């Protein structure tokens, strides 16, 4: 056999019948050390702490028992004692639905794991290094405007507000880029706590009020539904989602318009709707609105500061929280963006909740 990955074939008793040169190279064994030997005894699988994995938990055993192909990440202890991360795919060989053997294909993913680790470390470092000077710009500008250093003229206050807006835009861009990189690298850590969605939304509206009032846009919040506005979720991620949607609504609404948030506290979930009286999204652009880098042409001409990443990010973040997002929009009239959050979310990869069952 000649193939880039390691390949091992076993018979119905789990004994190794064939092994390719790549497998021998990865494992550090000679062919005669493996042929005829019982697979689990010779191919040692461990956890990252170098503790042996029970036979029943190994992909090979699962493939034999279930008759299905199994794909997993694991760790092998090779001949020289090192533990290496591997990606394993095992397919059973069936005759009349009975396993006659199996084929395992595996590869050493040490380099890929190293690259992922470097990506995560870069993200953390970039996040800190880029944002520290921005924190100072924002904090001192706000302190000046808020009068901590004495009274200012209205012209001075106006200039400072320009600095604040610019630093907010830069911060949003850094946040968006870093969060997208984290989502795509699988490096988002979800930390679930009980929180009040009404209070969080109120906080975001307060933070955006300066921007809205400059465009003479009215902001409002109301709550409906008989349930509580409190639920378990990740507050920082949710704040990012709400901030993105409200900030978009303000950005794409002309002067004198309205932006509102509605929290509908339903029995199994909370649905939050952000409504604006803005330029709206043309029907032929609806399919692409959550795509990376997409900006609807009707607004790109009118509002040049967007990146086309906000809604792509919001969708990705909502998936981390077990939620779902959809919208309705009419060009020239405005848009409604709805998203749901399941109550008592315990963490990523929950597959029990279907938001469409509860959609009004």
């Amino acid at each position, binding site marked *: 056999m000649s193939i880039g990955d390691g390949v091992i074939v076993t018979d119905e008793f789990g004994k190794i019948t064939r092994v390719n040169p790549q497998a021998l190279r990865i494992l550090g064994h000679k062919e005669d050390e493996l042929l005829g030997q019982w697979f689990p005894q010779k191919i040692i699988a461990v956890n990252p702490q170098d503790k042996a994995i029970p036979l029943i938990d190994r992909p090979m055993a699962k493939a034999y028992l279930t008759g299905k192909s199994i794909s997993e990440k694991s760790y092998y202890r090779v001949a020289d004692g090192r533990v290496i991360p591997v990606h394993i795919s095992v397919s059973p060989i069936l005759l009349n639905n009975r396993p006659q053997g199996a084929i395992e294909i595996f590869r050493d993913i040490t380099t890929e794991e190293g690259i992922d680790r470097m990506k995560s470390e870069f993200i953390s470092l970039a996040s*800190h290094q880029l944002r520290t000077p921005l924190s100072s710009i924002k904090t001192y500008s706000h*302190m000046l405007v808020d009068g901590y250093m004495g009274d200012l003229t209205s012209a001075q206050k106006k200039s400072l507000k320009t600095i604040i807006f610019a630093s907010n835009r830069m911060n949003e861009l850094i946040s968006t880029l870093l*969060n997208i990189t984290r989502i795509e690298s699988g490096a988002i850590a979800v930390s679930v706590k009980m929180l009040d969605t009404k209070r969080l939304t109120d906080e975001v509206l307060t933070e955006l009020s300066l921007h809205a009032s400059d465009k003479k846009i009215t902001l409002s919040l109301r709550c409906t539904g008989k349930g509580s506005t409190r639920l378990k979720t990740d507050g920082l991620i949710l704040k990012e989602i709400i901030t993105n949607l409200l900030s978009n609504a303000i950005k794409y609404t002309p002067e004198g318009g309205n932006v509102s948030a509605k929290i509908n506290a339903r029995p199994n979930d909370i649905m939050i709707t952000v409504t604006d009286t803005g330029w709206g999204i043309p029907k032929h652009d609806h399919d692409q609105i959550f795509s990376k880098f997409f900006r609807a042409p009707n607004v790109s001409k009118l509002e040049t500061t967007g990146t086309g990443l906000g809604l792509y990010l919001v969708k990705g973040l909502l998936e981390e929280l077990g939620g779902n997002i959809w919208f309705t929009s009419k060009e020239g009239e405005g848009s409604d963006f709805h998203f749901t959050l399941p109550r008592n979310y315990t963490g990523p990869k929950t597959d029990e909740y279907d938001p469409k069952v509860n959609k009004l």
Partner: protein
Amino acid sequence: MANILIVEDDRDLNNAYSIILNSEGHTVETAFNGEEALRKAKIFSPDLILLDLLMPIMGGLEFLQAYKLIKLHPDVKVLIFTNMENSPEVAEAYRLGAQRCIIKSWTAPHNLARVVNDSLQAPSIPAKKSK
């Protein structure tokens, strides 16, 4: 009103937060790394600690571990300062007893003062017991 210990290695931000919280009537002490914070906490008895995570010499997580091990002030509130939201470090800080996370680059001065005042009034949450 309350004793607040600010632990932040960036001197500009450390200074800014001191001005803001002093103007709220709190008594403020500052430290620029976890080691200095441990020394000052013993003498100062803070009611609330504003703790940056990424600092030289001793970072925020190491400080939290050492602080809890010594069991200096069980009822103290700890608010984490970070620009690394959604990171495993923030999750670990919560596990070690932090009550809340403040994103530095998002938080305006009046919001900082409000968050601190709200946290001082909230009941204490005990740190999770280790297995």
